[in-house]
């Protein structure tokens, strides 16, 4: 019997668009449809709406409005930041530093640049998922033009030492880009205090619509365009503006930042209870990531002796939405590059489960997940030859 109930704990994958965000977007489809580049009144209204959203984004980041450029999302922002800096500054140097745990939007962009003759350093992380400042300092050479390190990791939720990284980069005169897609609305951000030169964000991770994002580019940064075409976004990002999306992004980021403290307290309390009960009631389980420096809604745990995809299938049967770092879901050879980078053995990474809580989760959801997760783990362990061996081992001692 499939449960009717849905408990969504995959907020790092995406969030439901807040109905109030949808409400502010609606007028910008069939009524305020004017192209902001045109001259007449309805076009000027669109233009005004875009500029208001730009102000909202700038305010949320501690930036100036003319440092905000709208894009199609996190992937485009990451691609633009990295390729744009690389191509505009290749006379100065060909070296880029990133980390081993970046999102594929960053990693695959760096791999592409490697093929174009750039040299990339992938900084390792410690067992909590943080890069070490000494490693960063040691990696910077006179050829280094860019450091790109994520604000917070999407799988294990670890928050990176961004202020320290910003300081080192500024001291060395190297541009610093951060993929803050997971951090917006979860961690206070101030691009000038943190000495961030470029920052990527994406609306669908903070209850805004999908397919819209922004790149913050500090004034004076040398960067090439990624998209060539019309003169939109002050000639830096061509393409007719997604006005409704931009309006939704602006409204959503305002709410995400203004309600941050209250929401984070509540979500982190739910997450902490969920974690405590998992560790207490399910043996042979470990927390992945950082014990403290992590996103408020992120929980990543590994269950010994079982595999992640089968866990997800059974959880889905009970209406629980989660994700895993197991290779069996991705169709790739290796389990999550992030979990492996933290030193987790492959078989432990296969048994990982990511639950990311968000604004609409309740105590009741936590109870429901605990109840069913316990059953799921028991059921899969009963089936597992690794667990059978484990039981025999513990009986023999």
């Amino acid at each position, binding site marked *: 019997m499939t449960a009717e109930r849905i408990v969504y704990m995959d907020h790092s994958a995406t969030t439901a668009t807040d109905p109030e965000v949808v409400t502010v977007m609606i007028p910008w489809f069939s009524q305020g449809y004017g192209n902001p580049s045109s001259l007449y009144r309805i076009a000027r209204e669109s233009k005004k709406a875009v500029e208001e959203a730009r102000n909202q984004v700038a305010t949320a980041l501690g930036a100036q409005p003319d440092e905000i450029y709208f894009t199609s999302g996190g992937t485009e922002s990451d691609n633009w930041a990295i390729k744009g800096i690389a191509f505009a500054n290749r006379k100065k140097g060909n070296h880029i530093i990133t980390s081993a745990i970046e999102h594929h939007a960053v990693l695959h962009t760096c791999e592409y640049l490697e093929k174009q003759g750039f040299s990339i350093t992938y900084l390792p992380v410690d067992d909590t998922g943080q890069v070490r400042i000494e490693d960063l300092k040691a990696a910077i050479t006179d050829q280094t033009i860019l450091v790109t390190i994520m604000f917070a990791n999407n799988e294990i939720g670890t928050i990176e030492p961004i202020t320290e990284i910003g300081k080192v980069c500024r001291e060395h005169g190297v541009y610093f880009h951060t993929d803050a897609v997971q951090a917006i609305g979860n961690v206070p951000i101030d691009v000038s205090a943190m000495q961030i030169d470029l920052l990527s964000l994406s609306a669908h991770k903070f209850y805004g619509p999908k397919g819209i994002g922004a790149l913050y580019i500090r004034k004076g940064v040398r960067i090439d365009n990624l998209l060539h075409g019309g003169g939109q976004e002050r000639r830096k990002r061509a393409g007719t503006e997604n006005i409704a999306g931009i309006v939704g992004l602006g409204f959503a980021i305002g709410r995400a930042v203004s309600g941050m403290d209250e929401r984070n307290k509540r979500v982190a309390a739910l997450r902490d209870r969920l974690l405590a009960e998992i560790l207490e009631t399910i043996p042979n389980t470990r927390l992945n990531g950082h014990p403290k420096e992590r996103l408020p809604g992120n929980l990543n745990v590994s269950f010994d*002796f*079982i*595999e992640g*995809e*089968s866990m997800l*299938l*059974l959880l889905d*049967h009970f209406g629980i939405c989660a994700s895993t770092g*197991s*290779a*069996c*879901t991705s*169709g*790739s*050879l290796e*389990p999550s590059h992030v979990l492996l980078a933290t030193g987790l*053995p*492959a*078989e432990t990474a*296969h048994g990982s489960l990511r639950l990311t809580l968000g604004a609409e989760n309740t105590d009741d959801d936590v109870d429901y997940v605990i109840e069913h997760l316990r059953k799921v783990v028991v059921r899969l362990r*009963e*089936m*597992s*030859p*690794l*667990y*059978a061996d484990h039981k025999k081992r513990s009986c023999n001692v």
Partner: protein
Amino acid sequence: MYSEKVMDHFMNPRNQGEISEADGVGEVGNPTCGDIMRIFLTVKDNIITDVKFQTFGCGAAVASSSMATELIKGKTLEEAWEVSNKAVAEALEGLPPIKMHCSVLAEEGIHQAINDYRVKHGLEPWEEKNPHSHDHHGHEDETCS
């Protein structure tokens, strides 16, 4: 992504468990790759009278184990040897291409269990006709084998 049959065998696995005094045991896979399958056989007069499996792996791996054990139960060892991974996948109404290797595991597990039985009875192990290189996810130079 999975057929109803796969989901049925995953949700209600047949022949899951262990035979403590098994006549033949096969184990294939590697925990590093995320899959291990163990097959237990009881053999009477050359016929598989009982079979059980234990599997650590994805939904397709569990469903393949379950289906494979159903397909060989009551069969002679010769008949069971001929049950291919394709037959298992077909009986499951198909598997996604990236999941075919999970059914290979089932075929190999059965072969190992049968050969374990043969060796224990002083018989020559049968040779794999087309040995699969256990090419987990289709890579060549892998550490999992």
